[in-house]
Every structure is written in structure tokens, then in C-alpha cells.
């Protein structure tokens, strides 16, 4: 008896697509601005899986995928910092983090 449990590039790409979908769903459908920020993190992590998987399966010696993953992590950290600061600044004016209340730019 043998178990045919394998792992290949497919599996990583499917996992990445599923997590990206969950994150996109959260970004489009959450009310709370911080929840949207968290779901953007989910999407960025899904991209990182793709980058590191391609690094292993395509160019293992070059580390291009891993370097891009490091840059993505850097940008994600900066994005969370600035995003939270913006949310706190808006909360101070509007006393709300509900994205449906942020309609100053509406005509």
C-alpha cells in the first residue's frame, strides 16, 4: 500500500490562488478599514508564496524570487504603518472606521 501524496508547483500555485481569493473577498466586502488592511496582507502573502515557489522550481540558484519576496515584505511593512496612521488620523476627525462613512470625495 502506498500513499500518493505529492507536492509540485501546481499545489503552491493553487494554494496561492485560494489565499489571494480569500484576501480579495475581504478587501471588497469588509466594513472596517483595519480589516481591509489585514486582507491586503493576506493578498501580499499569497504573492510571496508564488515568488518563492517559482524561485525553487525555475531558478533555484539565482534567488531572484526570494529577493522579490523580501522587497514585498518591506513594502508591506511600510504600507501597514502608513495605512494605520491614516486610519487613526481619519478616526480622529470622523470618529468612525466604517469605510461607508468616508465619502468626502463624493461629488
Amino acid at each position, binding site marked *: 500500500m502506498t500513499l500518493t501524496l505529492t507536492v509540485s508547483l501546481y499545489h503552491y500555485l493553487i494554494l496561492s490562488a485560494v489565499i489571494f481569493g480569500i484576501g480579495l473577498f475581504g478587501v471588497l466586502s469588509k466594513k472596517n478599514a483595519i480589516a481591509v488592511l489585514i486582507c491586503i496582507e493576506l493578498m501580499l502573502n499569497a504573492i510571496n508564496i508564488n515568488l518563492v515557489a517559482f524561485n525553487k522550481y525555475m531558478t*533555484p540558484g539565482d534567488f531572484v524570487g526570494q529577493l522579490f519576496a*523580501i522587497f514585498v515584505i*518591506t513594502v508591506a511593512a511600510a504600507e*501597514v504603518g502608513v495605512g494605520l496612521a491614516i486610519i487613526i488620523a481619519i478616526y480622529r476627525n470622523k470618529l468612525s472606521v466604517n469605510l461607508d462613512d468616508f465619502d468626502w470625495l463624493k461629488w
Partner: protein
Amino acid sequence: MELLDSISWVAVAFHTLAAVAVISALLVVFVRNIVHAVLWLAVFFISLAGVFLTLNAEFIAAIQVIVYAGAICIMVVFGIMLIRRWNMGETNLFNSQTVAAAGVVALVTMLSAFLSFKSGVVEPAGDVPVNQVESIATALLTKYVIPFEVAALLLLVALVGAIFLAKEVKADDADSHS
């Protein structure tokens, strides 16, 4: 013993970690209390670090635990506590576009999964070198030195910008400056 030898332990680890990652990602979106959502986010980040380990990316896995599970989760919790409201149990709700969003997301996920299947079976082109930190550091400081410096500048700008945005601006100060 034959059964034990036939199991690919990397595959077992990958499938377990992938299940944990998908379930915790779903809980991040569907839990109603946003503090619990951030806790599940930490679980998600750590399981993804395990997925990176199955891809022979030890350095990325360490960075994932330090930066994401350590720093970003704590920062988000601080943000939540600064704007907390009375009923924390109802802080992570859905808006009125949920059905349309589900349709769009189903389409995007189907498309990307289909494209992944079309890519064909790919075998690893070779083994990932063992001395990863050395290789990454060499690449970062030679071929990719410009993006590296730009990333440093980006972090500085984000730091200053976050401090400036989150600092309370009094109406009197704004008047005296103009």
C-alpha cells in the same frame, strides 16, 4: 514500515500547513471580532512560514515570522486598541457589496487556478543552494543594490509619514503656521 517509507513527508507537511493556512485565512475574514481576526492572522503567518520551509527558503521563513507574525500583528493590534469601540464583538462585519464581491472573487480564483493548471508539470530545475543568506546578501549588495537603497528610502519615508499623519494637529498650531 513499507507504508512509512512510501510517504513523502514534505508533501504531508505541505498539505497540513496549506490546510491550516486556508482555514485561518477564512477565519480572518469571517470572524466577527477583529481582535480574534488578528490572532488568526498570526496563525496564518506562521503556517505560511512553514510553507516557505517546504520550499527550502529558510531565510524567508525567518523573516516571515519576525516581520509579519511579530511586528505587523502587534502593530495592527495597537491600531485597533487606539480606535476601540464599545462592542468589540461586532467590529468585523460585511458591507452591502458582499454578493457582488463573492462573484468577482470566484471569477478571479477560477481564472488563476485554470492558468496554473495550464502551465504544465514543472520539475525543480535543481537544488536550492544551502548557503542562502550569503547568496541573498551578495545579490542584494551587487546586482540589486539600487532597489535595496530605494527600499531603505521607502522605509524612511513611511516612518516619517506615519509619525506625521498620526501626530495630533491642533487647530491653533495650524493657524500659527499659515
